[in-house]
């Protein structure tokens, strides 16, 4: 028998005759009166921030808030602030000098400040992690209460990559002291547009 057969045979032998049924997973859960407010508070608690753009353009916002960012890339078409094409090469290492990545998020989750990011047009998933700073553009009003609604919208019928991003990368591995900016972006702003 090979390993697979051995493992499966052993499991079959060992599982009980009376088996646990699959429980109902759509349990009753919290709904927030003001999702925007909850999202902002949750994101702030993990070191991120959320801003709603009123009439300003994304380009103007970037010019104002990221004056030091030299290398700017984006998966969004039509931005004039962008000066590097994130999909230009097949090997992702050329993204190492990116100061600011402006990427698209589909929706935010109010309970935990996470944004669902899955973009087949973005060739290199590492972009979300290698950039020094991250700006996630989310459509205004695209917010759900909890992870329950979030997973109603997340699909993987075909192959791909997607991630929930909740604030910047962080660590507390040295004496439990929270340090923002471990390996990934040192700041992560969610911009509702």
């Amino acid at each position: 028998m090979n390993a697979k057969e051995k493992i499966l045979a052993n499991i079959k032998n060992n599982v009980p005759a009376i088996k646990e049924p699959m429980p109902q997973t759509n349990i009753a859960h919290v709904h927030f009166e003001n999702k925007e407010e909850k999202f902002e508070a949750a994101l702030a608690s993990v070191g991120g921030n959320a801003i709603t753009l009123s009439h300003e353009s994304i380009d103007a916002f970037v010019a104002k808030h990221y004056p030091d960012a030299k290398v700017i890339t984006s998966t969004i078409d039509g931005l004039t602030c962008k000066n590097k094409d994130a999909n230009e090469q097949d090997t992702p290492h050329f993204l190492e000098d990116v100061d600011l990545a402006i990427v698209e998020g589909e929706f935010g989750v109010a309970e935990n400040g996470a944004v669902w990011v899955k973009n087949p047009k973005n060739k290199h998933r590492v972009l979300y992690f290698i950039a020094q700073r991250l700006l996630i553009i989310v459509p205004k009003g695209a917010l759900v209460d909890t992870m329950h609604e979030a997973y109603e919208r997340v699909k993987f019928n075909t192959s791909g990559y997607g991630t929930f991003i909740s604030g910047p990368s962080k660590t507390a591995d040295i004496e439990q002291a929270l340090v923002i900016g471990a390996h990934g972006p040192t700041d992560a702003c969610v911009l509702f547009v």
Partner: protein
Amino acid sequence: MSQGHPELAEKFIANDERMHWHDKALWFVRAKRDNASKGVAEWEDLRDCAAKIKMHTIDHLDSYLLEFEKNALAKGIHIHWAYDAQEHNEIVLKLLQEKKVQKLVKSKSMLTEECHLNPYLEAAGIEVVDTDLGERIVQFRKEPPSHIVLPAIHLKKEDVGTTFEEFLHTQKGNSDPTYLTRAARVHLREKFLNADAAMTGVNFGIAETGGFVVCTNEGNADLGAGLPKLHIASMGIEKIIPKLSDLAIFTRLLARSATGQPVTSYTSHYHAPVVGGELHVIIVDNGRSDIIKDKDFRQSLQCIRCGACINTCPVYRRSGGYSYGYTIPGPIGSTLGANRNISLYKTLPFACSLCGSCSNVCPVKIDLDQQLYKHRQTVVAQNLLGFKKHTILKVATWVMKHPKILDFSGKMARAIVPKLPRSIVYSKANLWGKQRELPPFPKQSFKEAYQAKKGDRK
């Protein structure tokens, strides 16, 4: 293990100041967990549901594993099966050698710790870099992780400072956590960019989609796996969940239980390799399928490795991760270790006060304290207790079975012990009194006091 938990714990508690510091550090994390869980009204429903999903999956594990494999293959993910640690390590090495990998970056995976993968690969000439900050710190120091979520929780920032001075040439005497973290960031970026392959663990394998989820705060798993062309993920068979939507339950519980955050910074779903790359998943048994057989211990396979039971454990907090002598410390490690080898880990079921706090915080409701209680019985039944403890318990059992003799010995003890010199009362035979003071002996036994009270009432 030549030394048991009491001997190893003794070393840790020798430094009283540090022991209390360690205790406080973990209690701080436990308190954050309490706060986070209280913020979710449906918390108990989530735990209930999570426990049931896991048990259901274990009861049908053969079919869910096959479903996972089928769907993963359809998405271009390679699947391997490893019966034990040795097979797992051989598969990894073969994959690395086929691609001529010299430099490997790894994100946290307790499974690869369990398989002792690092020394195996290093012996074959491969550079292995653990990229989780805590793991990198202990790797520099040639120590194993002392906690499954907080690998360097036993170290003070000054310890990290001196370690980094030696390996990363940081400023002498600078132990500022932000400064040290930045130094590690620069050091590890270089490692990420030059790696030929990446390895990650798996938090959840999804049968329905054939993909898997990795949760980190640092972003090291994604940064590591996103650059080289080869990504190998090691997954214990118990990591499977049936459906993608089940993740709603687990992602709501995991980080809140682990560190008190509402969710980890990154919850990444892998369902494809990087552009032009390969993604391999190794499904590892290494003794897990044997545990299914035993209804008393089956629940231990529900574990999602959040570490909450460890943070809350009064024994762990005061004895440290290394006192267990097993890859996973704390209550969950004690039951898993005892399951693996009861004679080797015979002291672990006793590294427990049976307070039950672990079972109360466990997000998947594993009956940890009950399991440890049952392991103790096996230790006794298999005559593994050790002569001294065994004899004391034997005598105690005999005395308790004979009420007259119990009354008499109680009376004698109350009369004699207070008059004895300390050197005799706290002699070597008094294991209990080693670090503890006996309470003052009362004049009467409870029975006598009760009888007297009853007499008064009449």
